[in-house]
């Protein structure tokens, strides 16, 4: 059964991860010589790394939730102009991704050569104004990008609140502020808490920002420490695995808490009955709030993108433009590198495959879990959401071992990456598609049934067309997520299976920042071009074929 196969896909690598964590004796021996809990006992030495991880994740979560809450409030409760447009634009930071953001902010905020500090020095300042290579810097970058996720979740909560509850309060004489404090906040709080827990779980497992910004200042979190441990010679797999399992355990608990909060409050983050919230007239404050929205998008999207583009055209990055410093050599080099060309191609191909297969697979699984009445659907859902609690790097670690010994030689090929992506993105796809499925009233399918339509006919004529907008959104999400993927790809690539994001990271560490910037720009352009092509093809197909 498809559900069972998907479950195996998820559990197989986890089993290997746990096996590696329990391996004592010769760390190089495979299968493990002996089993024991020594690796976990040993983790005490790395207490500071766990501390770092919690610190960064905590700060980032607070920042992200504040951003999400404020933006959510502004865009759904006030009469700031252009709200609808901004809501769409709030998805952009997610597409820029933490890696791009980290690269850009490294250029902007490095203590020595960062743009801000260059300007500071030029103005006569001493020392540095900001230093991005600190836990606060890492948290800042992570929060900027996760803020848009928090926004989506909190915004949904705000929309699910019945405005008459506030109106009742005001009719009884409570002022605006009192209403907000006594009525709105308590109602919204559980949903916000749920979002906070979710964001915290994601932050625990984040990799790219800590990699780019943390390594230079010897600041490690669990994921980057694991990466270091398996990259050195001799590699320390069991220790790394033990770290991974510990992180997994913590994230698992967090995700469990999140699901408890969500189901207990019956929060409409998935089911869709939306009220139209009452909009407050904030008078002159409108413009300041509008400025706030623009500022956020500016800092999270515009600034990083501009910085990267600017750097990509320079010989040696500096904030002060100099005629002799501009060059196209970075692009020339990047395009000449077979690694970049084939990596870009592979990434686009993989993205297309992951999104297309993913939508079909996850659509089917969603339907299975939320619509069919088969027994065990709940258990399958639980298993399939597992990868949410496992950082991508950790998961890839288990996958590496699991698929290394698999008789079919997919190790080191694009197939392995495809399987890895599908597995790792299961929660993302399931969440998106099930959100749409649950909004479709069951009676729409039942009435088709009563008209005599068989299961297949119903799926084709009723379910699928209604799901289409959701499926398209899920496809897009999966495509972009897989092209941007780092944590799993970095461990699973092979000589003929290179993808672009790890190549960008490799370039950052082994060539210049300018070349890396050029590669990042090329990646973004390639994705945009691919999407443009796909949409024109799709639209033409719809026009010709009709449905």
């Amino acid at each position, binding site marked *: 059964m498809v559900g069972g196969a998907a479950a195996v896909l998820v559990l197989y690598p986890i089993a290997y991860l746990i096996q590696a964590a329990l391996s004592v004796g010769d760390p*190089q021996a*495979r299968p493990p010589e002996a089993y024991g809990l020594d690796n976990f006992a040993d983790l005490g030495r790395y207490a500071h790394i766990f501390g770092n991880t919690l610190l960064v994740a905590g700060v980032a979560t607070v920042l992200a939730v504040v951003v999400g809450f404020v933006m959510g409030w502004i865009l759904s409760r006030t009469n700031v102009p252009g709200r609808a447009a901004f809501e769409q634009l709030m998805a952009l930071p997610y597409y820029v991704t933490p890696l791009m953001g980290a690269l850009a902010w490294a250029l902007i905020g*490095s*203590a*020595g*050569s960062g743009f801000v500090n260059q300007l500071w020095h030029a103005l006569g300042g001493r020392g540095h104004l900001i230093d991005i290579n600190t836990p606060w810097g890492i948290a800042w970058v992570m929060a900027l990008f996760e803020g848009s996720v928090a926004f989506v979740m909190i915004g949904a909560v705000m929309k699910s609140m019945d405005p008459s509850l506030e109106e009742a309060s005001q009719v009884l004489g409570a002022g605006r502020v009192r209403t907000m404090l006594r009525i709105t906040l308590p109602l919204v709080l559980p949903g916000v808490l749920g979002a906070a827990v979710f964001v915290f779980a994601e932050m625990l497992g984040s990799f790219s920002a800590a990699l780019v910004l943390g*390594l*230079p*200042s*010897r600041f*490690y979190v669990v994921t980057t*420490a694991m990466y*270091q441990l*398996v*990259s*050195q*010679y*001799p*590699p320390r797999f069991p220790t790394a695995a033990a770290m991974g399992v510990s992180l997994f355990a913590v994230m698992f608990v967090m995700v469990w808490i999140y699901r408890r909060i969500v189901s207990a409050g019956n929060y409409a983050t998935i089911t869709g009955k939306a009220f139209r919230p009452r909009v407050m007239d904030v008078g002159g404050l409108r413009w300041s709030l509008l400025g706030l929205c623009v500022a956020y998008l500016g800092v999270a999207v515009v600034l990083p993108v501009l910085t990267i583009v600017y750097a990509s055209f320079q*010989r*040696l*990055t*500096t904030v002060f433009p100099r005629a002799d410093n501009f060059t196209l050599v970075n692009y020339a*080099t990047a395009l*000449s*590198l*077979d*690694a970049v060309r084939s990596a870009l191609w592979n990434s686009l191909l993989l993205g297309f495959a992951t999104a297309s297969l993913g939508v079909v697979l996850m659509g089917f699984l969603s339907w299975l879990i939320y619509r069919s009445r088969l027994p065990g659907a709940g258990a399958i859902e639980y298993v399939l959401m597992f990868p949410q609690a496992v950082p991508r790097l950790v998961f890839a670690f288990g996958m*590496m071992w699991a698929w*290394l*010994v698999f008789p079919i*030689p997919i*190790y*080191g090929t694009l197939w392995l990456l495809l399987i890895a992506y599908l597995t790792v993105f299961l929660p993302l796809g399931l969440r998106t598609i099930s959100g749409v499925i649950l909004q479709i009233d069951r009676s729409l399918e039942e009435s088709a049934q009563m008209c005599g339509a068989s299961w297949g006919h119903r799926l084709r004529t009723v379910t699928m067309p209604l799901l289409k907008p959701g499926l398209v959104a899920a496809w897009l999400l999966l495509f972009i997520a897989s092209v941007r993927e780092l944590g799993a790809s970095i461990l699973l*690539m*092979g*000589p*003929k299976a290179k993808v672009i994001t790890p*190549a960008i990271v*490799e*370039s*950052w*560490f*082994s*060539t*210049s*920042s300018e070349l890396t910037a050029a590669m990042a720009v090329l990646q973004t352009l390639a994705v945009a071009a691919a999407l443009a092509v796909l949409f024109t093809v799709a639209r033409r197909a719809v026009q010709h074929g009709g449905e």
Partner: protein
Amino acid sequence: MSEHSRSAVTRRGFLRTGALAAATAPLLARAPFAAAQGRATKVLDFQTGADVARAEQEGEIVYYGHDGEAGIGVLLDSFKKDFPKIKTSYVRLQTGALYAKITAERSAGRFGVDVLQLSDISPAIDFQKKGGWEVHVSPELSAYRAEHQSSPAGHYTWGGVSFAGIAYNRSKVKPAEAPKAWKDILNPAFKDGVTAKLAASGMQHAQWYVLRKLYGNDFWQQFARQRPKGFDARAQLFDRLSKGDDRMCVLAEYAGYTLFAEKGADIEFVAPPDGLPATAFFIGVVNRAPHPEAAKLFVDWALSKRGQAVYQNQKILLYGSLRTDAGPMPTGKRLSDFKLLFPTDWNDYVASHPVFVKEWNAIMGL
């Protein structure tokens, strides 16, 4: 191999190019050559022990190496120009991770690598112990001294040398403070402004070992107080140095310096009078390679004057060639112009590796 030759390799240092070495080297070089299987054929302008027709039939080569992407790109492109019928693909990782990957794959029964190039001798020797290298005595080995080959020869060979001094950013370092000798890197004025490589680097191991022998175990403990930052690759070190993110790099590879100085970076290179730690990279054919003849062809090419010219003259690689008939480097200097410090006792060097990793990780904060 005879007892005599083994001790010659372990006890001989590279600075001792005395008559004895000169006399015995050709002897040693010839002995394995006599045991070489197959005949040597001339292809292009070098000798190879591979069956070129078969190699071209195999049509492909998988290369695992540690150089930067651009460097590997240049290397493989040069090979492809010479042998267009052979496709190339590669994996690039720092030596530690590279070796970990290949051993993991082999332990799981996956043999997909043709040629392996490492920048640290410890994994090379370890690989030899595991029987990982294919014993292929290249006809080109006649141009290499015995001390630059594996023992016994044919497992791996020293494909080139890189050495490192000190480099600093001229705009960040006052002339009075400028370092001149190794002891100057301990100057507290440089605290929080120095960089080196991480423990995964072979070059870093070499520097640690050699300077420890020269200045005692305390040297590096004192260096730890400088709170140095560690990085993966020299491009990163020089990138930051050029931009002024760091003031001084204590493992400044000559090749990296040359590349960045050319880009216009305001950096200075210092060759301390006590000598420059040096290390080589090691290249060889992998046992159970999927394309054995192509692999042998590649290694022969890499060790030949043709291949060595790529390694030595391409600025992005810039390894000094160890061929006895090698020309000067693009900067005009030869290897012999520098006082190079190699570890003298290889077994001791290899045995010191775990100690190095532990100590260096601690110095670097992991």
